[in-house]
């Protein structure tokens, strides 16, 4: 290798490294900004917007937790997330079992139809759903909103679970059948325990989606004591006077669950979100 080659290679690899580092800094900057601002006092923030705080000032977290019904909103988001994820998981697994391991007329068409619902934007359903929910007296209730979330989560959930169930060898099922298991027994004792990785994937992806969701929560949980964390956060923008460091502390707390789950279960996130495109 000549020295020109070497220099060329060095330049190429350092160029690559530089590009990736710049992209990483850009993608982390808002998070960095949120974290450092949440430890600054108001005056410090005005004087020093993007630098590190001179000292760790925990007062903002107290302000954030005390104000704006923070705990209630946090609880509302949690109830909706847990409810919607649990219901959609059970319903989707039952349906996926039928799709993956049973035969019935119209199976393929029905499956494709359900798949195609994945791309329908929720905003399309919002107006008629609102009218229906008012009629059914489900507006401003956890059940009503969870119902909508479950419906919206089902197409993807059924798709993911069906694909996974199909990888479970038929021999295992046949063996269980011979041992006297009925189909519900096969579902509960064989399919579900073997599907733990797919279930984890589905739970993290769906939980993330519900936790972050804004539009449905905004329209179907309008009562102040039912508002979710994201709706509360979105409302902060229109304030005339905002205590930015305290707001950042609030955002920080709202983001922690997501980041923690992501760092712990990263491979499930990536697997879940890229399934359907990468085989």
């Amino acid at each position, binding site marked *: 290798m000549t020295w020109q080659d070497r220099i060329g290679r060095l330049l190429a*690899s350092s160029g*690559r*490294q530089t*590009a*990736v580092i710049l*992209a*990483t800094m*850009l*993608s982390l900057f*808002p998070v960095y*900004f949120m974290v450092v601002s949440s430890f600054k006092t108001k005056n410090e923030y005005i004087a020093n*917007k*993007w630098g590190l705080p001179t000292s760790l000032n925990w007062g903002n977290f107290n302000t954030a937790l005390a104000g704006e019904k923070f705990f209630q909103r946090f609880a509302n988001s949690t109830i909706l997330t847990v409810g919607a994820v649990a219901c959609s998981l059970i319903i989707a697994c*039952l*349906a996926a*079992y*039928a*799709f993956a391991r*049973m*035969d*019935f007329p119209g*199976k393929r068409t029905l499956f*494709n139809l359900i798949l*195609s*619902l994945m*791309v*329908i*934007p929720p*905003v*399309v*359903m*919002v*107006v*008629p759903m*609102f*009218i*229906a929910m008012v009629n059914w007296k489900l507006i401003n209730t956890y059940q009503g909103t969870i*119902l909508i979330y*479950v419906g919206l989560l*089902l*197409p993807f959930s059924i798709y993911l679970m069906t*694909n996974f169930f*199909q990888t479970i060898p038929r021999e295992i099922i046949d063996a269980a059948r011979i041992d006297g298991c009925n189909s519900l027994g096969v579902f509960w004792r064989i399919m579900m325990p073997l599907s733990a990785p797919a279930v984890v994937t589905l739970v993290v992806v769906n939980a993330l989606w519900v936790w*972050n969701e*804004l*539009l449905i929560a905004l*329209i179907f949980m309008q009562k102040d004591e039912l508002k979710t964390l*994201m709706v509360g*956060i979105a409302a902060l923008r229109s304030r005339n006077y905002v205590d930015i460091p305290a707001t*950042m502390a609030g*955002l920080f707390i709202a983001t922690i669950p997501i*980041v923690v789950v*992501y*760092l712990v279960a*990263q491979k499930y996130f*990536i697997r879940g979100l*890229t399934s359907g*495109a*990468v*085989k």
Partner: protein
Amino acid sequence: MRFRRIEPWLYLAPALITILLVFGYPIVRLTILSLQRTSGGVARFAGLTNYQFLFKDDVFLQAIRNNLTLLICVPIMVVVALVLAVFLFERIRGWKFYRTTLFLPYLLPIAVVGLIFSYIFQLSGVLNDFLNHIGMGWLALDWLGSTKYALPTLMFVIIWKEVGFGIVLFLARLMSVEEELFDAAKIDGANWWQLQWYITVPQLSTVIEFFTVVSVITMLSWVFNYVYVMTGGGPGNSTMVTELYVYLQGFRYNQMNTASAVSMLLLLVTGIFIFLELRLRGQSGSAEAFE
């Protein structure tokens, strides 16, 4: 034997009922609502009046223009994601760490990042503060407060958040390409550009296609959160999008019929993409679930 026949439907029933309630019923209702006008609490059939009204409404036309402008994000996202995915695939030092951090924006709630970005882009925000600091004060613009820059600023945030998905998608696909393909090309003396052009891009064509379709749908009908949190459609409707228009008509001005007509149009557009998606899937056979 009789039971065997109805058995699958017992397993499917909860899912089908939920889907009918959340998708089926609203779509039927939507069609009816979009063809009616309500006055004094009475709904009357009105044909296509709502639709005619829409195409005379400047705000709606502006919303459509803005949604179409957002499409500019798509090629940018594809190229940026592709380049970064290739760099990571070439195993630069710390690629796993970079993958984790570059994917992070995609997972953060839009409400949260939108608010953070609006503090960054404020006239007295972090960005302008920084620009003044390094002597580039002439570039310190009112990023979100001017009709000229609000939409491009919004586009930056959308790209910032969505590009991570592309990176991870492309990287996952690249890692399943057989190494020999790259090795063979290298032995044949292909340079870096040729390698990308003749191996990487063709191998990734299906995921690139998928990411493009998903991103186009996003730009046309999944950007409500960004707009709602960062600009509220302003200043002066310069960032109005169709989804926000539905929300405002339906829930602020109580014009459920107009809102339904717009929803119908959105549904139609997504319908076209569903059709395209199914055809693509049919061709590539990549998502065949029943084999």
